[in-house]
């Protein structure tokens, strides 16, 4: 029995030049878009570039746009689309294209390095740290992040306004929220959250929350409380006074310093931000 066919329009090319190519693939039960891409590699275009690792929605490697929507290729069923209509697969739009469906996401790694790391208070006398499940449920939600960068892709501040210099994007705002709400952490990163990570640019459109494959309520649970805390600190007159006199409105926390240069990793692919050895050489 012949299996039903599906048609895919896949972007092929680089940042400089590219076009759509149409492929027909045979479908089978439960097939996801990543299966279709693999089928194309195996039978039609072995040099088609795509990132993936787990094929189970856990690693966040296979991010792309399907019919214009940011999604994970491995968690999108072919049956979700009307039969007979071509499915269009394109790379994430907010990042430079390396080739075909693969984009240069190195900006995200630069952002990650700028965040001053976790700094816990001392352990209890018996060598443990006690935390109630209730108090960490909220941050455990944020820690589900698989770094697919789909939220970064869809956020208009990053995507349309290209505010990458001054705005960290939703992924790193929830990372900052995690640190800020961590019961053991002792650093006060609020000045940086405002100045260096640009929380003020977020105007709460919630597009990021909508695309998050981990169903993290990025905006409501992460960014809005973060905004409130930062606003408290900067605009609340009582806090402002307290700050003026004590220098620190949060007695358990000390102001964080920007990460010292030279101490952080140099994280690079060939496509590193500063160019480096990164010319796109061909054989």
């Amino acid at each position, binding site marked *: 029995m012949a299996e039903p066919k599906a048609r895919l329009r896949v972007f092929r090319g680089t940042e400089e030049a590219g076009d759509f190519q149409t492929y027909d693939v045979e479908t*089978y*039960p*439960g*097939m*996801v878009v990543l*299966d279709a891409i693999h089928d194309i*590699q*195996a039978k039609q275009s072995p*040099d088609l*570039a795509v990132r*993936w*690792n787990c*094929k*189970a*929605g*856990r*690693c966040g*490697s296979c991010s792309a746009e399907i019919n214009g929507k940011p999604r994970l290729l491995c968690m999108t*069923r072919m049956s979700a689309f009307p039969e007979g209509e071509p499915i269009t697969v394109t790379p994430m739009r907010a990042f430079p294209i*390396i*080739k*075909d469906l*693969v984009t240069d*996401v190195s900006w995200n*790694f630069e952002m*990650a*390095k700028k965040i001053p*790391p*976790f700094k*816990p208070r001392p352990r209890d006398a018996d060598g*443990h*740290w*006690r*935390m*109630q*499940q209730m108090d*960490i449920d909220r941050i*455990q939600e944020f*820690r*589900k992040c*698989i*770094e697919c960068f789909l939220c970064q892709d869809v956020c208009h501040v990053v995507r349309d306004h290209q505010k990458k210099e001054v705005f960290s994007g939703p992924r790193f705002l929830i990372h900052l929220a995690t*640190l800020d709400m*961590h019961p053991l952490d002792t650093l006060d990163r609020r000045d940086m959250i405002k100045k260096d990570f640009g929380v003020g640019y977020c105007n709460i459109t919630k597009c990021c929350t909508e695309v998050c494959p981990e169903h993290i309520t990025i905006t409501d649970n992460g960014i809005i409380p973060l905004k409130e805390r930062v606003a408290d600190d900067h605009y609340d007159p009582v806090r402002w006074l307290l700050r003026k006199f004590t220098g620190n409105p949060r007695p358990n926390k000390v102001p964080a310093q920007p990460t010292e240069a*030279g*101490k*952080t*990793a*140099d*994280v*690079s*692919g*060939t*496509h590193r931000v500063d160019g480096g*050895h990164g*010319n*796109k*050489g*061909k*054989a």
Partner: protein
Amino acid sequence: MAGNYETHEHDVIIIGAGGAGLRAAIEASSMGLNVGLVCKSLLGKAHTVMAEGGVAAALGNVEPKDNWKVHFRDTMKGGRYLNQWRMAQLHAMEAPDRVNELEEWGALFDRTADGRILQRNFGGHKYPRLAHVGDRTGLEMIRTLQQHGIHTGMKVYMECTVTRLLKAGDAVSGAFGYWRESGRFVVFRAKAIVLATGGIGRAFKINSNSWECTGDGQALAYLAGAELMDMEFMQFHPTGMVWPPSVRGTLITEGVRGEGGTLRNKDQKRIMFDYIHPLYANETAPTEEEADRWLALSTSGQMDKNVRRTPDLLPRDIVARAIHAEVKAGRGSPHGGVFLDIATRRTPADIKRKLPAMYHQFKELGDVDITKEPMEVGPTAHYTMGGIRVDSETQQSRVKGLFAAGECAAGMHGANRLGGNSLSDLLVFGRIAGLHAGRYAKEHANLPSLDAGEIQDAAQEALAPFNRHEGPNPFQLHEELKETMQTYVGIIRTEEDLSEGLRQLESLKERSRTIRIDGNRHYNSGWHETIDMRNLLIVSEAMARAALLRKESRGAHARDDFPETDKEHFAKVNIVSRLHGSTMEVAEIDLPPVPAEIKKVLEEE
């Protein structure tokens, strides 16, 4: 001299950025050394992110009777006493410190009622021992290590694949690789190298592994003169998804059974009571009644030593073979597995809280609501107990300056790994490998010299497929390899099958030398696949040859023609494979003798 190639110099190079590689890199960096970390994928995407159920460590938070000796005994028993006893001992002793250290670096484990790290039940562990974060413990671990690691000053080379190790005399001198993006070559010059490249699951058709698990480290070490050990022990995890075909093999965490999930056949009968292994008879409930009582007690945090645990939590090799036997006897589920039922055992709220990733995985990929229906499950190739043979104290291989840790190293798990013992293995031996590689680097003042001829050969080897005008497609060849391994070197083996498997591997090896690649070197998936094929073929051959030599059944290695465990000869040997000229030589070596005080620990109860 590295010719015209981009060259980087480091004291220590770590190849692989999963849990083991990251932990090794952190250790070596903390010694003030100049460390480079190379990985095939983006940082934070390694196979380790997929780990679900937890990390084993005898913290004793849930059951105060737990301690390193119990953990050590469980591990040796699970490995059917073929483990390197010293590795199992170091592992059991150091795992709690490594877990606490993760907390210090920001990891947030689930908590007990009094606020400490919570621990859950897992197969083969006598007490609840797995520190966990719902069912995404691997993600928590790798994120923590990654975020801590990037502030230690190491240099990370992402999407960069190493294809050859370089040598100066009998020691390593560096590594040769290419950037995924540009296809350009890169040379690393280093005093010491740690391999942490993970497993080889992608040699099998039905597997739970990420694309990276192609045996690279094992093959790199083998080609550089190191030995592989215990390659016959390939763990088939009992519970992979069997339907729909698109997700066949995808893992269902053992945490499901730890939380009360139970295995049933098509007649709804609980199967595991019929498969209780004599080694575990004393501590396993023989009746449903007792098993259910144990579950009720253990999920409410109470323990009663007179109530024994459910046989659903027997070690993986036993459960995988039980499922295989049920299916073979015609009592399987519609798609060739058995049923795993959590829906009738726990409330929907509990299931969603304790197993959120499983809930979503089934809902989104299988249209199954696991709070209402059972899952269909079957064995899937999952973990390689075998790997690079290393010294138990230092993790150094037979090649000087070459260390290995994590899934690509052998010795810790013997014939079968207990769940949760891999994540702890990564932390414990990642640290030890980093430490000793660091010490080795400090003892050597000068960087070793590079051999231009070796580099030239490596470049030629990598480019060869571009120079051919016709030949097979690498993806299709990989499919054939997976089919061969699944059929002939799979869960139940015979001499006849293994010999046929070896014949087919030989012909695949021939054909792989004729693979042809289209396009250019720029992010060329077909080319990358070709390079992985060389490694897969090496480790597959080692697996088949070792399996042929081990004429007994033990742990993950089941021979239909030798169904008994051999207590005389094979109980005392590990099997090693090494490169001899251009052929693979397999040999038996004696297990290291167990000192009297350790024997005593093993015999205590």
